[in-house]
């Protein structure tokens, strides 16, 4: 039995790296600093280790050969999931390049809300260490932050010694939209966050009014979707008065039509504030390899992770290459599903032959044509993953000898067999 300290996590998106684990053979126990996301993800027992073809256990060579056969006869392959580490994504893009596949990250429909805003007008953002040391006002929009990121407040807001806040001063926290579900936004001194509640579908209007107020425009209503204008005026004033305000949101939580427009208004509001003071956006995300997928495809192709190699070169379209729609419209005839992190992240069920490169322990309603169980980066093999801020890559460690191959190894074998 060995105890490992300072273990980084690819699961939670914030790159937590203070986990203390016990590794006993193949079993892992989180001893300290776990959370609702990381603890089960690390502690999950290994499931299957033998690949299957049509439900029958086979040697990996046979599974790879069968996968290659499916891909070779496919006229248009979809590679879905795309939840893996950097080397996994490198191998995945290489295979897609040779096969002419569509590549679509599982989280892209939510990430798209940010990417469309970025590609249309840009943004000003910050990273976690800046938040930890400078943030004197945190505005959380439309997001139950502790559900998305259980240790966010503990790690980055309730610090003993932020470098640039006055002694004893603490960050003020304001929720706009969803209310916090737990207590982690309550400061150690017992100060509760201010909450300006509104329904998700009212956020576009509320955020637009907030931006108008920041710009100094007159609003002729006393109430906006149940919120008093004076409260929104006060919030605009707090943002203008903050030394280093941070506005955060999780694209996944902004689940209403054309949420990208609301993201864009948030980003433009932040830019407006920077005319005089400092303020930054902080888009959350980064769990289960979504940032990793976008970063790796960006340097290998120039585009984020929804693209097609069908014409022999990469083409990006945030709507056209939506894997779910391609399946529904029968525009693809084979599915290669890759998910190293979550054994519950199963491929969409459909009629096309399906190859699953998945975290050991997946249970299928409908057995795929090929299933190759793989190890998880950061547990079964080394690797790299990108954190939510897209700038910091973490070095994932190998914690145990599981005998499971990595996704990169399996995809490279399939690539070679093509």
């Amino acid at each position, binding site marked *: 039995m060995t105890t490992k300290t300072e273990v980084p996590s690819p699961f939670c998106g914030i790159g937590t790296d203070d986990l203390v684990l016990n590794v006993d053979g193949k079993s892992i126990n989180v001893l300290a600093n776990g959370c609702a996301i990381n603890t089960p993800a690390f502690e999950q027992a290994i499931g299957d280790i033998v690949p299957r073809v049509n439900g029958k256990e086979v040697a990996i060579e046979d599974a790879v050969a069968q996968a290659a056969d499916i891909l070779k006869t496919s006229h248009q392959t979809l590679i879905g999931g795309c939840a893996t580490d950097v080397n996994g994504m490198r191998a995945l893009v290489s295979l897609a390049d040779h096969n002419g596949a569509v590549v679509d990250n599982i989280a892209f429909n939510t990430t798209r809300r940010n990417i469309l805003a970025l590609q249309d007008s840009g943004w000003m953002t910050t990273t976690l260490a800046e938040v930890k040391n400078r943030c004197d006002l945190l505005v959380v929009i439309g997001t139950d932050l502790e559900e998305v990121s259980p240790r966010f407040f503990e790690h980055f807001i309730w610090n*003993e010694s932020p470098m640039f806040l006055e002694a004893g001063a603490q960050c003020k926290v304001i929720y706009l939209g969803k209310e916090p579900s737990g207590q982690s936004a309550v400061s150690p001194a017992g100060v509760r966050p201010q909450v300006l509640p509104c329904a998700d579908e009212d956020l576009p209007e509320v955020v637009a009014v907030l931006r108008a107020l920041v710009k100094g425009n007159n609003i002729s209503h006393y109430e906006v979707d149940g919120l008093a204008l004076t409260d929104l005026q006060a919030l605009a004033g707090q943002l203008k008065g903050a030394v280093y305000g941070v506005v955060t949101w999780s694209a996944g939580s902004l689940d209403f039509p054309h949420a990208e427009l609301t993201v864009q208004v948030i980003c433009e509001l932040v830019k407006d504030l920077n005319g005089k003071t400092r303020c930054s956006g902080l888009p959350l995300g980064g769990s289960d390899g979504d940032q990793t997928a976008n970063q790796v495809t960006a340097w290998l192709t120039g585009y984020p992770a929804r693209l097609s190699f069908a014409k022999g070169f990469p083409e990006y379209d945030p709507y056209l290459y939506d894997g779910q729609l391609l399946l529904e419209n029968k525009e693809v005839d084979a599915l290669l599903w890759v998910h190293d992190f979550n054994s519950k992240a199963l491929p969409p069920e459909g009629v096309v032959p399906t190859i699953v490169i998945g975290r050991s322990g997946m249970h299928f309603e409908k057995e795929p044509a090929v299933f190759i169980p793989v190890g998880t980066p950061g547990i079964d093999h080394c690797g790299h993953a990108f954190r939510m801020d897209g700038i*910091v890559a973490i070095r994932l460690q190998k914690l145990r000898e599981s005998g499971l191959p990595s996704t990169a190894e399996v995809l490279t074998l399939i690539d070679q067999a093509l």
Partner: protein
Amino acid sequence: MIIKLTGGMVYDPANNVNGKALDIYIKNDRIVSKQEVTQVDQEIDLRGKIVMAGAIDIHTHVGGGKNNIARILLPEDHRSDPVAATELTRSGTGRALPSSYVTGYRYAEMGYTSVFEPAVLPVNARQAHMEMGDIPILDKGGYVLMGSDDYFLQMMTAKKDQQAINDYVAWTLNATKGIGVKVVNPGGINAFKFNQRQLDLDENNQFYNVTPRDILSVLAIAVKELGISHPLHVHGCNLGVPGNKDTTLSTIEGIGGLSMHLTHIQFHSYGVEGDFKFSSGATEIAEAINKNKNITVDVGQVMFGQTITASGDSMKQHANHKHASPNKWVCMDIECDAGCGLVPFKYRDQNFVNALQWAIGLETFLLVEDPWRIFLTTDHPNGAPFTSYPHLIRLLMDRSFRNDMLKTIHPEAQKMTTLDTIDREYSLQEIAIMTRAGAAKLVGLENRGHLGVGAWADITVYTPDDNREKMFEKPDYVFKDGELVVRDGEIVHIKWGTTHIVTPEFDSGIEKDLAKYFSRHMTMKMGNFKISNDEITEDGRNTLTVQPTQRGIL
């Protein structure tokens, strides 16, 4: 494998060979003497051809987070330049910031064999190395950006002694696998986080009470005392600001004879004369460079067309965002370490400022006398994409072509430049100095950038052509470490280069305080911050090459 390159006209300034017909023998990956060769496996007749070492780009943004943000920001730019896969090569996209494979192919196709990323943020170094790890054929390396991180500035305020600074610089270089030290708007990226919008050379970072001049001096001394070959690589104060030539002159004066490389000097050579209060300071700047032998520069030439500016200088990039074309831009504060800003630019020949920027760059090239101290860059992609180098070389080598181009730019800009009075034309030997021999010397690469016995066989062969653009854009042969990778301007073989680093010594006792700092204030543990060798080499393609420091290899 022995290859004989027969009778090419060799330009090899490091060995004082200036256009002489010579045979070159390649044994495996190195150049050897005739005496070492018993039989020749392959002979290539290069009579009538021009032979130089592989070219080295000392300043080009080819790896790291800001590049990826720039890529994602401009899908329309990539759409205009799709690159299909072949039997041999991977697909990708080109234009202002090409994908990593395309970067490698296109550099190699122009005869380049090494590139150096000039703005590796320590906290982003892992990404920079991963991206550069996907650039085929070329050698690469990075200058690690310091001077705006809070740990360093706290040391400055606390007046820590030079030895402590040296240890921290050396520790950072080791932890992030750099080959040099870069500073961008010294202390200014940090000051912007405190809402300071301007920081002149002798102005205080208002939080730390430290001036850019203090920072430059301390870092330049650190580089010298650590024995790092590459001088402190400086992106100075006031980038792009009219009148900044005075800041630049004062920066040169103030460094007190220490070695210093001033990068993309064109963007720092502006006066305030004329109707538009914007003029060329190139004459004065070039004079100062000519006089101060401790100074080297690269130009950061502007070329007309669409590009994107990608810089660590968040302060100045934010100030420049109103020029964004198309109108979208990104600024980012990063990890109490540094920052970045991405602003798309369309340089127009009929825009007075852009046209004069073009002329200022060329004036600088032509007025700096010593080709060993000036380097050919467009600060890719900031002045223009690197694919414009052959055109730039023609502008330098062909006076009548240059003057023809000059006649097409904004008429007021024509009046404000002395370009048409400058007769100088660069010779092939001077081009070879700027892009090969001098570049290898500046970066501190052993046995690169020359064709003498013992050199790595990075070799480029051209067919002479009066149209130098045509000549330089499509070499006949390019060898990388002795392997033929390009034939007639097209990739014929893929190999993988090495990553050049330095590993200066330091007192490991400093890790005690650093570990505490990381745990207390950063968001990753010190142990997880440091990049291990196997992170770079475990893919089986990439290797690390430790270049010597004057104090020896750790």
